[in-house]
């Protein structure tokens, strides 16, 4: 079994808040927000809002679609990381409520989670210490 190890140390930097408008994709909007603010890596601090339909990835790679309109995000956690080519990639997981209040959880599929009314997010910049592997 692989040993547990610390992969990175660092500190939090700047903070950005955004309101994302209808029909924009949740995952790519968070990546675009980091690009606009100059954040190379970031952590999602708080997020809430609604999606037209929620699309969560299942273990077999297929999707679970929660029909709205206005599937509500009740919690979201995730981070944005710089890729070797300099592009940014957000990985977000969360819990959504359907129009009856039933809950579903999993990773949000990029390109398939359009904002319905509004989405509010706070990102905190993550600054890795020099010399991390």
């Amino acid at each position, binding site marked *: 079994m692989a040993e547990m190890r610390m992969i990175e140390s660092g500190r939090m930097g700047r903070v950005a808040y955004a309101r994302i408008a209808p029909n924009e994709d949740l995952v790519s909007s968070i990546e675009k927000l980091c690009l606009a603010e100059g954040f190379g890596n970031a952590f999602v601090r708080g997020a809430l809002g609604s999606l037209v339909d929620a699309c969560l990835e299942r273990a077999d790679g297929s999707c679970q679609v929660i029909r709205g309109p*206005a599937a*509500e995000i009740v919690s979201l956690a995730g981070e944005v990381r710089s890729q070797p080519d300099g592009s940014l990639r957000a990985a977000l997981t969360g819990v959504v409520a359907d129009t009856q209040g039933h809950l579903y959880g999993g990773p949000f599929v990029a390109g398939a989670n359009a904002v319905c009314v509004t989405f509010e997010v706070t990102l905190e910049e993550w600054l890795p210490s020099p010399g991390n592997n």
Partner: protein
Amino acid sequence: MVEKLMGLPRSRTVVHPGPFRPVRIDRMRDEKGRHFRLSLPGGRTLHESFVQALADEGVASASMTLLGGELAELGFCLALPDPTGRVLATYGAPHTVHGACFIFGNATLGSSASGTPVVHCHGAFRTADGAVRGGHILTERTVVGRRSVTAVVTALDSFDLRVVYDDETRMPLMRPQARRIHG
């Protein structure tokens, strides 16, 4: 490289009743967030406790993560299609639940156009019969129970979060704005 197509669904576009606003991401930045950890006591509403505790620290705008606790009374509502068609989705009638376990949630503290504190909160909870549900939490109608609710707060000091009427959706929505000079 050949990428495997997983047959992902194509996301639907919705049409809101008002004019399309060209700015799609309203954003503001703070050089440093201040952090707080709050314990919200029993017998008071979530709204009252958030607003009071953060006002004492001079915080008017913040993002919060709410951790588990007990709710003596929980007010919540669900988003439903608007039968009148005036807006795309609207909140249904408020529901009240007595004795719920709060699982987690997120909240934003901002202010109305007139400066009154506003808390926008979504969360997940378990009711006394064991059902797990979630939705839009009405913080003014939600009273903490015997086990306090913990909130981890990131305060936003250099700009305001203000609820403004949004023409596109015809809804009052939280948006970041340049800081209003007080006094």
